[in-house]
């Protein structure tokens, strides 16, 4: 298992998770202060599955994501300044300010976008995988989705379609226990989303989604299988969101305090920091990584604050190809 992960790599993973955590804590504050418009769904507490999964991918592999997509976008290598600009609704955002938090994307690193319709990213990933198969590019596609999406027809249709076509797509369910306020136990009458794998004739795995090293191990193995067989797989990462569904939801009125406390103790950043300490890394080094993440985010905020707003007339462009206004 993960005993072979080098300290250097672990520090890298820590930086990647801390980058997402700091990004989301910062945009939460900026949203409250009115600097960032719209509503935010943060993945605070779920960083390990985004980072552990994307760490197993190549740059050419594709990712689609959900309304809770900042982490996936940054983990895939999206430009930090441009992503922050997108959150601000600035011209320099990847989407030119058309998408914001729920549609963060970076096609330059094959991050095909967060999607605000539950379950919609699965099909797009199946299509990207089909495209890779056509072009024999060797790339695979990953669809991140929540356990709430497993109640949706899109989940079942796409698992079946991907399996019937035989395309290299990895379905990654981040089961954070709640579809908005609805507890998974009441919405799903099987213990695990991964159990659906048998119905579609594809491999299924369950992983501790708060242990980045475990996620990386499983994803390394599963992406190898997907890539070499050219067929889909399903992995369920058990995790928890520290916050509510979105910025206006504390997440405390429908989740027991003991449950929240228990999961806070399993915070993926805390856990990796502890692992590093056990491996002999001193606290100063760990704090240095966290400070590096903070510095990157501070830079992105400073950049986005100063960046120009889009020309209002640009709202009328890019509806169709050729509408670029150039």
């Amino acid at each position, binding site marked *: 298992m993960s005993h072979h992960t080098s300290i250097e790599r672990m520090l890298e993973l820590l930086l990647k998770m801390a980058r997402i955590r700091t990004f989301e804590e910062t945009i939460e504050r900026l949203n409250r202060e009115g600097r960032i418009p719209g509503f935010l769904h943060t993945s605070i507490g779920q960083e390990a599955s985004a980072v552990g999964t994307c760490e197993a991918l190549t740059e050419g592999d594709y990712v689609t994501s959900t309304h809770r997509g900042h982490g996936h976008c940054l983990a895939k290598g999206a430009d930090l300044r441009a992503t922050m600009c997108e959150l601000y609704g600035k011209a320099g955002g990847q989407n030119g300010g058309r998408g914001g938090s729920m549609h963060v994307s970076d096609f330059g690193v094959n991050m095909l*976008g967060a999607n605000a319709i539950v379950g919609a990213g*699965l099909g797009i990933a199946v299509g990207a995988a089909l495209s890779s198969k056509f072009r024999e590019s060797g790339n695979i596609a990953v669809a991140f989705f929540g356990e709430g999406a497993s109640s949706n027809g899109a989940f079942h249709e796409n698992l079946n379609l991907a399996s019937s*076509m035989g395309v290299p797509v990895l379905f990654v369910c981040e089961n954070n226990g709640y579809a908005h306020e609805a507890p998974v136990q009441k919405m799903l009458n099987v213990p695990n989303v991964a159990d659906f794998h048998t119905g579609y004739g594809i491999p299924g795995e369950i992983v501790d989604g708060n242990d980045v090293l475990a996620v990386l191990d499983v994803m390394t193995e599963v992406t190898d299988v997907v890539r070499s067989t050219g067929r889909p797989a399903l992995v369920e990462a058990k995790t928890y969101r520290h916050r509510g569904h979105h910025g206006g939801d504390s997440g405390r009125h429908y989740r027991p305090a003991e449950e929240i406390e228990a999961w806070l103790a399993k915070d993926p950043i805390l856990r990796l920091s502890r692992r590093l300490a056990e491996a002999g890394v001193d606290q100063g080094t760990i704090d240095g990584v966290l400070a590096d993440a903070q510095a990157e985010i501070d830079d992105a905020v400073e950049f986005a604050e100063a960046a120009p707003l889009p020309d209002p007339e640009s709202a009328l462009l890019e509806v169709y190809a050729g509408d670029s206004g150039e």
Partner: protein
Amino acid sequence: MIPVSRETTFLEATLEAVREEMARDDRVFAIGEDSGVRGGSFPIFKGIAQEFGDHRLIGTPICEGATTNTALGAAMTGMRPIVGLHFADFMLRAMDEIGDQVARARYTFGGQCDVPMVIRAYDGVVNSAATQHSGAYEAIFAHFPGLKVVMPSTPADAKGLLKTAIRDDNPVIFLEHKRLLRTRGPVPDGEHLTPFGQAAVRRSGADVSIVGYGIMMAQALAAAERLATDGIDAEVIDLRTLVPLDEETVLASVARTGRLVVTHESWRRSGFGAEVAAIVAEKGFADLRAPIMRVAGEDVPVPFSPVLEQRVIPNAEGIVAAAHSACAHG
């Protein structure tokens, strides 16, 4: 006149378009349910797998939504899919995918990707297909920014417009009326592309403009013949593409005739005829000498029994009556 070498059916003309574009560009592929050996109930992809290989014609399970988003994902990453969704009524199973995803992917992501895909379906009333197999939904699709909407009425246009659709870098909704599929007509030899946004004047006339598309063109031309015997000289305009819309040809015609009858087989209420009427009212009001008339499907689901079915769809008589009514003014 266009040089004509042969006649084909509407369906054969679309097949020629698919075959030519697949031979021309290896990024083009077809995907849809029931796309096997026969190439579908209405065999819109007949022989494609045999000619180009199974991988160029992907037969899917019955999952219109997943198929549509899969095509979108492929289009966003460099392929050029043609999706066959069969009956237009089944497109409603893919409305999130068409409306929320396909139509706005390019815009949402700020132009980071093209979405070169065609979604084909056959629509309209035929042979007692009843309430769930007779629908035509062009007005819904025309409402969504980001989609182009094509409604050919002849084999030549079916081929030329489909080739243009396949080469377009935008999502194109390509709607083929079921009663048109087996109609025959001349198709030009060689490379034949019909541009979008250019209406065709099927008959010139001075007294009234009859504007429509698709299946209603035959009815409009029949109506014009009858009107001629009544001393009314009707102009018949085939829009061919609803998005983009050739407003100029319509406005120029109304400027000459002063009278407008708009016709489509689909429902009248909030139908595409309302859009044409509104454009003419906004931009050509001074030219109008009579109220704009709409000849369209009754606002009821399409019933099964042939006598009931015939009662709810528009026909040449309706167009004649509307034109007479318009011509009774000024």
